[in-house]
């Protein structure tokens, strides 16, 4: 028994140790003495927080305990955060029962890394709360993500949990430039763990644009999404990502759609057909003029050769974004397409007219001769 476990506490527990004890309104005012003693505040004893209670009988309405009196920094951060409303988000909403608080390194703590998603999910996994505040059900998306699975299946303490990206007390809206999830801060936030990818990203055109404050450029979450993060090798991810690149690079998406890469890929996730990043790279996307770009002339044989065994210099002259409507850029293709279209239109026009005339004339002929041979002749 700790020295600070004063005799007074035993007095308090004489009443409050009864698990069924309630106040006049029916709220439980019971305290589990063993758990409180083991908790991080156990050493403080009852009086550490309930300083206004000097003896028994005590006032019917003792003063409200204010965590801020010790935890001033946390309270200050919380006051600036999206959870600033103390009534809706008292400290206990995350830290659990006020008499049973453990340090976050303790598996019994509600804010132990492996417990955080469930703790946040109490509200953020609740469809009614989601509806009230208009946010999506991020808890279930996270739970199925690669981070969520690493956490729940492997118990990986380093797997990203809510706090890793959003912080704890000072959680700001992603629209706030000071937030760790504000667009320009996302690469650094993810980069806390994914350091090499962040370094690559900073070197690419998108990273440089973001560094300049160009909010149109994509950050990690634009392609990988924030919560439902999928394995990039999964067909679902490969299906959903091409349109994301195409939402800015519209002309490139449209010419890509004309290719066999796209046609086969669109049929439900053909994993092996080339998507944007298979050729352009994913994180350090560079212009083709950059010798380090996989689509630089000097690197094309290697890049195409990843899938097309035997690719040679002539093979890589294939244009993955050729536009058959553009006579200046693709004259050969333009005339091939023109010829094929004329052939198609000409043949069909002639024969459709021929067929209709013939059909009408034959039927007419048949009806006139019907009596002679039963309508078989035409």
């Amino acid at each position: 028994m700790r020295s600070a476990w004063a005799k007074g506490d035993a007095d308090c527990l004489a009443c409050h140790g009864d698990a069924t004890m309630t106040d006049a309104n029916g709220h439980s005012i019971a305290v589990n003495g063993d758990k409180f003693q083991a908790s991080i505040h156990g050493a403080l004893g009852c009086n550490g927080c309930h300083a206004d209670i000097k003896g028994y009988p005590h006032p019917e309405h003792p003063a409200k305990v204010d965590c801020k009196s010790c935890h001033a920094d946390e309270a200050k951060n919380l006051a600036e955060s999206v959870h600033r409303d103390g009534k809706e988000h008292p400290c206990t909403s995350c830290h659990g029962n006020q008499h049973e608080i453990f340090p976050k390194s303790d598996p019994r703590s509600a804010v132990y890394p492996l417990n955080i998603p469930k703790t946040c999910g109490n509200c953020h996994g609740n469809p009614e709360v989601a509806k009230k505040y208009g946010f999506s059900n991020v808890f279930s998306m996270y739970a199925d993500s690669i981070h969520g699975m690493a956490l729940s299946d492997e118990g990986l303490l380093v797997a990203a949990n809510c706090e890793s990206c959003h912080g704890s007390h000072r959680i700001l809206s992603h629209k706030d430039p000071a937030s760790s999830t504000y667009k320009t801060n996302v690469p650094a936030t993810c980069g806390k763990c994914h350091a090499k990818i962040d370094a690559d990203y900073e070197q690419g055109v998108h990273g440089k644009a973001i560094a300049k404050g160009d909010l149109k450029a994509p950050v990690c979450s634009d392609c990988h999404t924030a919560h439902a993060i999928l394995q990039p090798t999964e067909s679902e991810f490969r299906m959903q990502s091409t349109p994301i690149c195409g939402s800015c690079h519209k002309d490139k998406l449209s010419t890509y759609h004309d290719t066999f890469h796209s046609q086969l890929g669109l049929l439900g996730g053909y994993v092996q057909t080339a998507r944007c990043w298979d050729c352009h790279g994913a994180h350090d996307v560079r212009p083709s003029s950059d010798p380090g770009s996989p689509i630089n002339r000097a690197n094309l044989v290697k890049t195409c050769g990843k899938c097309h065994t035997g690719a040679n210099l002539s093979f890589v002259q294939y244009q993955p974004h050729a536009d058959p409507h553009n006579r200046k850029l693709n004259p050969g293709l333009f005339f091939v397409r023109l010829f094929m279209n004329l052939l198609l239109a000409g043949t069909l026009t002639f024969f459709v007219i021929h067929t209709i005339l013939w059909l009408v004339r034959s039927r007419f002929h048949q009806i006139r001769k019907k009596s002679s041979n039963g309508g078989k002749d035409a």
Partner: protein
Amino acid sequence: MPELEQVTTNEKQVGTGTRYFRRFTAGQRALHATLFTTFLGLAATGMCLRFSDSVWARAVARAVGGFGAILFFHKACAVVLTLAFLIHVRDIFARAIMNREKGIFWGPTSMVANWRDMKDLVAHLRWMVGLGPKPRFERYAYWEKFDYWAVFWGMVVIGFSGYAMWFAPFFARFLPGWALNAVLVIHSEEGLLAILFIFSIHFVNTHLHPDSFPMDMAIFTGVESEEEFKTKHGLEYERLAHSGKLERLLAEAPGTWQINFSKVVGFTAIVIGLTLLVLTLTAYFS
């Protein structure tokens, strides 16, 4: 089973009321059967690829076992059709060179177009609009020759462009770079033309036309009735009758099972074809 034999004999006697003549050999019918089954397969899978952003394309892909299966079926049908095509070409050369069959390249029974076909076309068109008498045709009328050569040219063009995509790195050794882009345009446009032509023009001209409706069975049973022969290829009938060779073509009336089998196969092909035509047209214009 004496009763059963009795029935069969009766049917044969009824059948002998009309004379039947052989129009297509077993080899030709087998060629057509291979051609249309693989073509249906190629068309169904090819259109899924061409219009891969349409809802039905994905549904079909799922139904056959995924996107990979689509490509597999397409290639499998292509290989079978290529073999059939090569056997046909070999057969033509064998007949022309080994057997010195002159009728293959010129003359009334040849598939090769000649000046007469041009005159037939004009005369036929004149008849359609009521400006002349109904022309009569030799063994292969001009539209039948067109059907043949359209398929022949189509197989060369679609086949070459298809293999060029399949084995692109190999073809790149002797094709210029932009040709690799062009082969997809050629393949898909020519494929579209083939589908639209076969499933609308060929179906109507050959099968749904009033003198054949609902279906011309000659390509399935190999024989046609004397009346059909006279109506459709009157000049050939006359030429053979004059030279006394007509009787050599006399054949047995098609059996009931043969007719039923042909109907099932033919209608299945027509239904699949028309479905593909509707899907293709909706996808093309949407």
